[in-house]
């Protein structure tokens, strides 16, 4: 069965995208990413440590761009200008690669997105030829505006970044999913496998997570759990769940032929 996630014209088998932060070391990162089956992995762009030993291993040795689609992010940026500068550097760093994850934060405590700055940055980036996947609030109107601005995927939060609180407002996500013409991915807030499955059962096209895997007791095993959860949720959505019947119990076994009956 050919069920692919298509982003900016490229098809992916996996609907799970994973971050690479907060792992113990690059080896654990590599193993967890591998177990997750993710094909798209996010990275951050940071100043190099000038005193650093140049022989030190780098993240991209563990996760080579020849094998993974590297998705540079703008985590930590609080203005459109900083986000745009960061992604121009990322494009140069990754040999002209144009698929990026835009996030412009509004507040260091909640890491909630600053949507006016996000929208401004998205417009600039699209005009410069970037393919923008955008972290956003779960406001359906703003999601539509980002889509209209040319973003290739909208990625509303399910709950705060790194909180593991799961899907707090499935109704908003549902509205965004129902109306979007580009892929919708839940980005942020997933805590465990059932959260990922619920996101997929809502009809999301994919899920992006980092902490839920990296901060599990066994990140490699959780990577695999998330892979299975995303697949299960997707399959359930494609299969179409049975109708909910809150006041109507219906036995699955025949009502006839029970032993001990007189008639």
């Amino acid at each position, binding site marked *: 069965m050919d069920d692919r996630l298509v982003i900016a014209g490229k098809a992916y088998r996996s609907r799970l995208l994973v*971050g*690479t*932060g*907060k*792992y113990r070391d690059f080896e654990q*990162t590599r193993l967890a990413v591998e177990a997750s089956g993710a094909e798209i992995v*996010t*990275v*951050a*762009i*940071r*100043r*190099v440590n*000038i005193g*650093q*030993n*140049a022989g030190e291993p*780098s*993240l*991209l040795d563990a996760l080579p761009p020849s094998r993974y689609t*590297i998705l*540079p*992010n703008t*985590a930590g940026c609080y203005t459109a200008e900083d986000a745009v*500068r*960061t992604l*121009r*550097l*990322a494009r*140069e*760093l*990754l040999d002209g690669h144009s698929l990026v994850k835009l996030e412009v934060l509004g507040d260091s405590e909640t890491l909630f997105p600053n949507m006016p700055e996000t929208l401004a940055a998205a417009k600039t980036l699209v005009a410069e030829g970037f393919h923008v996947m955008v972290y956003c609030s779960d406001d359906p109107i703003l999601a539509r505006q980002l889509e209209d601005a040319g973003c290739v995927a909208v990625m509303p939060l399910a709950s705060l*970044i*790194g909180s593991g609180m799961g899907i707090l407002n499935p109704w908003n996500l549902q509205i965004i999913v129902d109306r979007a013409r580009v892929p919708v991915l839940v980005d942020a807030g997933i805590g465990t496998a059932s959260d990922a499955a619920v996101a997929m059962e809502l009809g999301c096209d994919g899920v*992006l*997570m*980092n*902490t839920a895997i990296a901060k599990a007791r066994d990140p490699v095993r959780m990577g695999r759990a998330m892979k299975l959860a995303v697949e299960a949720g997707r399959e359930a959505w494609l299969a179409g769940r049975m109708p909910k019947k809150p006041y109507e119990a219906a036995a699955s076994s025949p009502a006839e032929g029970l032993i001990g009956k007189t008639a």
Partner: protein
Amino acid sequence: MELQLRINGAERRFSRPLTVRELVGELGFEGKRVAIERNGEIVPRSRYGEVALVDGDRLEVVVAVGGG
């Protein structure tokens, strides 16, 4: 002739004029995957050899690190 640069927010002094390529060598990042911004503009890798740095240039040198 001395060269004073601001690299990743810190002042650095060099004893001779440098191109971007020579700076990358001085810093020990030859062959490493880095990207460089000079005074707010990207310096494409293909131009490292021809871009001569001047006193007071502000440079950002970045790499990819783990992140969500």
